[in-house]
């Protein structure tokens, strides 16, 4: 039965996430935007709380992206993907940078949960895992990475350079993408869990950024970094037909999460803008045609409609993951729509609110800086368009480049 409301059993979780965002994230939002690279210690309490929730099975933990198979009476699953998505939206309504800086909730945790075996999942339980894919010369073209992994007895030896590693310095370990054999292309790319204190794993610097400044972005050099062979996630074999699909599969689960982050920021900006417009005497009427309302109200309706589409596309992708339906297309729909909408919404909210929106007394200008990354990481807008177009048109990556 078609119903697009927050599931009844998740309303408490959403409410709790909202309260946590209000109590822990919003009040510290500006503080860590200004104090870039300072560890937000207020997060420790919240992280402990989230760990507790995850342990009890009801929380928004990064372990939640593992595909579940339990069905309800109707056979329809509202599971971990949906609850994690809803929780992420609320937290990013609070502050996206702080959520990204949340201990033990890294993208690496999601990767381990999604493609790691039971032993690896157990071994890294309770650890904070960051993710390292991008290199100085390789961004969206992750099939072209140059970091190498060479087998040496019970170990792999990693050499190369990684940039844009979220929470890379603060995390306990980093999931590093490297190739076993550059000549064999994408199929030879594997991911390895590297502990932060491994010799040769050197922090080069932390980036200074446009937004999400509460979240650190690290640049690493790997100089003969030895990791145990058992730290390779997934199969060590190079299977030309499906090797890369394994690591790329993570994206089907993580893209809706980034879309959810974008939705959270966009909603924060819309709520604040609506409050300010109402104070200024502009009412938004849902029944009168937009053409007969003030331009600000008409603009607001347009932005809110884009937000609503982002929100529902994101829930759709998560719901499909929960129900074991292939969702690559819908995950990219969600990411593409939410990424571009969040940027547009937050920037136009700043415009609507004038100097109040632009100034640092309010958070609107910050949200418009934070939002931009949502249209970039986990696959840029253009990468999502490529994925969507290839699917709709039935084209390979060789045909539609």
């Amino acid at each position, binding site marked *: *039965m078609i*119903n697009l409301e927050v599931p*009844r059993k998740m309303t408490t979780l959403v409410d709790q996430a909202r309260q946590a965002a209000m109590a822990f994230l919003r009040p510290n939002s500006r503080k860590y935007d200004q104090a870039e690279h300072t560890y937000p210690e207020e997060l420790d309490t919240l992280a402990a709380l989230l760990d507790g929730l995850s342990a009890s099975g009801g929380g928004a933990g990064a372990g939640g992206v593992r595909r579940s198979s339990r069905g309800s009476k109707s056979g329809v699953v509202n599971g971990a993907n949906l609850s994690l998505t809803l929780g992420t939206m609320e937290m990013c309504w609070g502050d996206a940078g702080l959520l990204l800086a949340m201990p033990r909730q890294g993208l690496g945790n999601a990767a381990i949960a999604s493609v790691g075996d039971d032993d690896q999942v157990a071994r890294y339980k309770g650890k904070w895992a960051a993710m390292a894919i991008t290199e100085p010369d390789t961004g969206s073209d992750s099939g072209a990475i140059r970091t190498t992994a060479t087998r040496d007895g019970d170990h792999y030896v990693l050499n190369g350079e990684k940039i844009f590693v979220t929470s890379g310095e603060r995390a306990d370990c980093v999931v590093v993408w490297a190739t076993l054999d550059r000549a064999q292309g994408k199929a030879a790319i594997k991911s390895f869990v590297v502990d932060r204190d491994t010799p040769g794993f050197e922090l080069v610097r932390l980036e200074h950024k446009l937004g999400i400044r509460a979240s650190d972005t690290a640049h690493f050099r790997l100089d003969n970094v030895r990791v145990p062979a058992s730290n390779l996630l997934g199969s060590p074999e190079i299977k030309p037909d499906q090797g890369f699909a394994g690591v790329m599969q993570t994206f089907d689960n993580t893209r809706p999460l980034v879309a959810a982050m974008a939705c959270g920021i966009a909603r924060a900006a819309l709520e604040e803008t609506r409050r300010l417009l109402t104070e200024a005497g502009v009412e938004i009427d849902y029944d009168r045609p937009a053409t007969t309302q003030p331009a600000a109200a008409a603009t607001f309706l347009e932005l*809110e409609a884009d937000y609503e589409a982002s929100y529902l596309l994101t829930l759709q992708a998560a719901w499909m993951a929960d129900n074991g339906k292939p969702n690559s297309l819908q995950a990219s729909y969600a990411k593409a729509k939410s990424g571009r909408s969040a940027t547009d919404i937050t920037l136009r909210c700043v415009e609507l609110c004038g100097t109040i929106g632009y100034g640092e007394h309010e958070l609107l200008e910050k949200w418009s800086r934070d939002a931009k990354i949502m249209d970039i990481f986990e696959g840029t807008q253009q990468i999502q368009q*490529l994925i969507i*177009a290839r699917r709709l048109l039935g084209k390979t990556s060789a045909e539609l480049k």
Partner: protein
Amino acid sequence: MGVLNRVAGSKLVARLGVKAPVDRALYHATRTGFTAANRTFAATKKLTKPSRLPSAGDSGVFDLTPTEEQRMIAETVREFAAEQVRPAAAAADDKCTPPPDLLRTAASLGITLVGVPESLDGVATERSTVTNVLVAEALAHGDLGLAVACLAPAAVSNALVLWGNETQQATYLPAFTGDDVPAAALAIAEPMPLFDPMSLRTKAYRTPGGFTLTGEKSLVPLASSAELFVVAADLEGRGPALFVIESSTAGLSVDPEPAMGLRAAATGRLALSRVSVPESALLGSTESYVDCVRLSRLAWCALAVGTGAAVLEYVTGYVNDRVAFGEPVSHRQGVAFKVADIGTELDGMRLLTYRAASRAEQGKPYAREVALARKLCAAKGMAIGSDGVQLLGGHGFVKEHPVERWYRDLRAIGLMEGAVLV
């Protein structure tokens, strides 16, 4: 099972598929009066109270799966749209009139019955705005103008089910559940810029025996063949209300009003000149009128989704086949990314429409959701229509391909009020 039985039977009817040529000159001649041989609407049995459909249940589960019944209904209508509607669309657009056989087949599919309660000889057991949305979407996949023509009578019967009193339901609904469903139309829009359905120029005044109505209604589907209208008018300056008016009533006249698109719906302008109607003509309240406007806008959203999907399918095939500079044009990002955006926005339009519909049928507040669905479907639906032509280049501009018609039809989404209702 009523619908399915009828569906099984009507498939045979559909296969006969007789096309009746209609004289275009007949449509363009300005006339007063109506082509329809008007029937007499009269209650054959008395109802003691109006029959209302209960709200649909709230499962409490996020779910995008239609029920088995909805899936079968939508599939049947989609088949009808593909086999009967799409092939008839270009000629109907050209002639500014729907093939009468097509409307009869649509009626025999049970399009009006889906919203009428079992107690009034329909097949519905609870409100199903979602089912109505799925039907509209499937029909518009065939053709938007013909979908409006097919759905116009259901707008009137749905309004009677939702807001009619026992006398109105007993008098008018039997015709809509019988074998010969009358042409009928819901008339809200008025010919003026910045039209707002909440402040109407058409006025209704109380008289000793009922009301007198004066005003003008724009883009009324099936206007000249309709036997029954539901007309929106401002009631003595106290806000809008709906009135049930039989087309034989003195003072009503119709002029053809062909437009840029929706031509297959045989749109006309309805003039009301001191039209006297009895007390019993007043349908519902101001509150129900607001619901009527919202549910009508929602129907237009569903139509946009169906036509948008038709555009996506059509251009996908075209850009893959069309070769330029030695390879299919779909191998170029400038082309492929437009297709990607059509797919993305269309899926968003669909989800917004479904959410508003599911809230409406569950009796939850849905004003916000309808407003946002309308805003998105108007903007993105039109963009899809425009890109549909653009992607075919010069070929999109000529009538050899349907995209120019969809371009014209999709312009209606953001501005139309009334005519259809889910």
